[in-house]
């Protein structure tokens, strides 16, 4: 039976599948229950699995995450939602001080099989705090996994893997492409292993590393430069932390050039880490400066300014050309 879904639908299906497969999976957060989430990621969960396992909470992110820590300690697998990644900060203390540390603190006695989901990123003409890309904030915290899908297929498989993972996973969803396209995917549960990047396209001249909503933009750019004879290797990182370093190290050893494209600000973005790793592991192979094309080091602008912020396919294409010409 055809099961052709958008990213948001794939996420919903992943939750449905896992709630069915595993009694200990519970889903909660603000507006997650009755309404099924402001983006409809959790729609029908309450109807199908009851108020005990899919429910609305008072408006308090710290408590949403903090109680999930308690639940995970006590044998459940909570999958909680932050309504937007920009509202995960009230929970920051719980995340950095407890979610990331309980296993180490207790020397392995308490692991936390929990998932924190949130829509992230810009481009939907939203209010302040609804557009940010702050994967780097979380990817730098020891003890957390950070995952970002870019297709319906990956969204479902990665989310299921995240729920089954014995360690806490931040699952950041690229809201700009929630409904951008559909894909036929299996109806039943399947896993895509965390910590493995995906080579979307093999190429010879330059390596591009990207993730989330930038993936389709990079793919457009790659098509543009292809016409000019540039052969590009494109890597979708998929797991931001811990990172699949081999994927781009090997690639750079082949191409000698690397561009990281992300929506988050440049300074201390994930691009900086990738470039540093490339320096450490493939220095002698470099034929041009490893480069970042990213959002600006500014607050994400309100809608009348947002077109400037996210690197466009044209800018990506131009940057690829510049690097290849170097």
């Amino acid at each position: 039976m055809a099961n052709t879904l958008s990213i948001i639908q794939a996420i919903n299906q992943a939750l449905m599948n896992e709630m069915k497969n595993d009694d200990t999976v519970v889903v909660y957060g603000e507006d997650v229950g009755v309404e099924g989430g402001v983006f409809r990621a959790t729609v029908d969960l309450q109807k199908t699995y009851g108020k005990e396992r899919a429910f609305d909470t008072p408006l308090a992110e710290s408590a949403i995450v903090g109680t999930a820590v308690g639940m995970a300690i006590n044998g459940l697998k909570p999958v909680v939602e932050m309504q937007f990644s920009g509202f995960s900060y009230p929970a920051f203390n719980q995340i950095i001080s407890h979610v990331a540390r309980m296993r180490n603190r207790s020397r392995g006695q308490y692991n936390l099989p929990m998932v924190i989901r949130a829509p992230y990123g810009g481009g939907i003409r939203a209010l302040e705090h609804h557009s940010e890309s702050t994967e780097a904030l979380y990817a730098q915290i020891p003890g957390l996994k950070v995952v970002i899908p870019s297709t319906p297929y990956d969204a479902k498989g990665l989310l299921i893997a995240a729920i089954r993972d014995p360690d806490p996973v931040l699952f950041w969803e690229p809201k700009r492409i929630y409904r951008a396209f559909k894909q036929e995917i299996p109806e039943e549960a399947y896993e895509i292993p965390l910590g493995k990047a995906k080579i979307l396209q093999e190429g010879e001249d330059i390596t591009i590393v990207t993730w989330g909503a930038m993936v389709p933009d990079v793919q457009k750019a790659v098509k543009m430069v292809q016409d000019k004879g540039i052969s590009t290797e494109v890597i979708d990182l998929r797991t931001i932390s811990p990172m699949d370093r081999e994927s781009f190290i090997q690639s750079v050893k082949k191409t000698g050039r690397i561009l990281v494209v992300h929506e988050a600000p440049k300074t201390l973005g994930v691009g900086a880490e990738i470039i540093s790793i490339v320096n450490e592991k493939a220095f002698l192979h470099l034929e041009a400066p490893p480069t970042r094309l990213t959002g600006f080091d500014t607050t994400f602008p309100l809608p009348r300014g947002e077109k400037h912020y996210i690197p466009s396919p044209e800018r990506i294409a131009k940057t690829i050309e510049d690097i290849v010409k170097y």
Partner: protein
Amino acid sequence: MRLEDYNPMKNEMYQVIDPSGKAKEKDHIPDLDDEQLKYLFRTMLYTRTIDEKALSYQRQGRMLTYAPNLGQEAAQVGSAYSLDKEDWLVPAFRELGAWLVRGVPLKNIYLYWYGNEWGSHMPDGVKVLPVSVPIASQLQHATGIGMANNIKNEKNVVLTYVGDGGTSHGDFHEALNFASVFKSPVVFIVQNNQYAISTSRKVQTLSENIALKATAYGMPGILVDGNDIFAMYNATKTAVDRARKGEGPTLIEAYTYRLGAHTTSDDPTKYRDDAEVEEWRKKDPILRFGEYLKENNVVDDEWIEETKKELGEEVKKTFESIEDNSDTELEDIFKYHFEKMPAQLQEQLDEYRSFLEGGK
């Protein structure tokens, strides 16, 4: 009026005019002249018009996300009217009525919702903070502004708003506690409009009402009929006076209802019954105040019609003035992060400009 005559622990609610517009507590009718009453009513009609137009622009694809305040006009206009010129307003994001009373130009308001930061830059002398999106976080700014007043020995006070949903947040607790401990001259208004997006007030807390939460901070709290503009005005004025006299903060729960959607992205039929909405429509604060004013010969239907027309035109004109003329200047994205733009930012701006201009 005296706050202590209405005990939230007993769930007592302060009301001056009843839903039909009749004065319930005659000696509580505030001492406002006809011009003032008309101003209040006009402002309520203004907010209603702004809401309605915004919704229709939005449907036409000419406006972005917008948070209507339909139904909460009395709670906002009545409370904000109790302030003096030098006082501060610290809003959440749904305080259209309060913004207008405090002198925020409609142009700013629409510009903000239209997606331009300049909407939050107030004219000189308008002591109104920008919208604070992270729920309940603004309460701490209000407390801090008041603490600064105490330190500087200035007598102005701070009026701040939060929703019923916001009362569950840690920042609510901390802000009220600090305000109480430091006797910060703040009036906290909880607009309990019964919903936080789709989440019912009943899910937020088991306390019988929100006003009684003041007890936890050794602070007076009062439950007020939020659809009654006189009750809101009197209670807030009393709290404002207290604050100004150095007696510290007050918590006011404005018991009201969000007649519209949470924002234009929201579909309330998903989570609440029409019947419930219909019940509350009968308690529409504009109807109620209108009845009172007509009964007391302050306004008549003709005045109302004319005022609505006039307001409609003004709103239209203002919206159109920004509609094709409000893209963000590229430089503005970079310019306001620090007093002096750091080299990195300048470089990013230059690089991007050069890209726009077609290459290095």
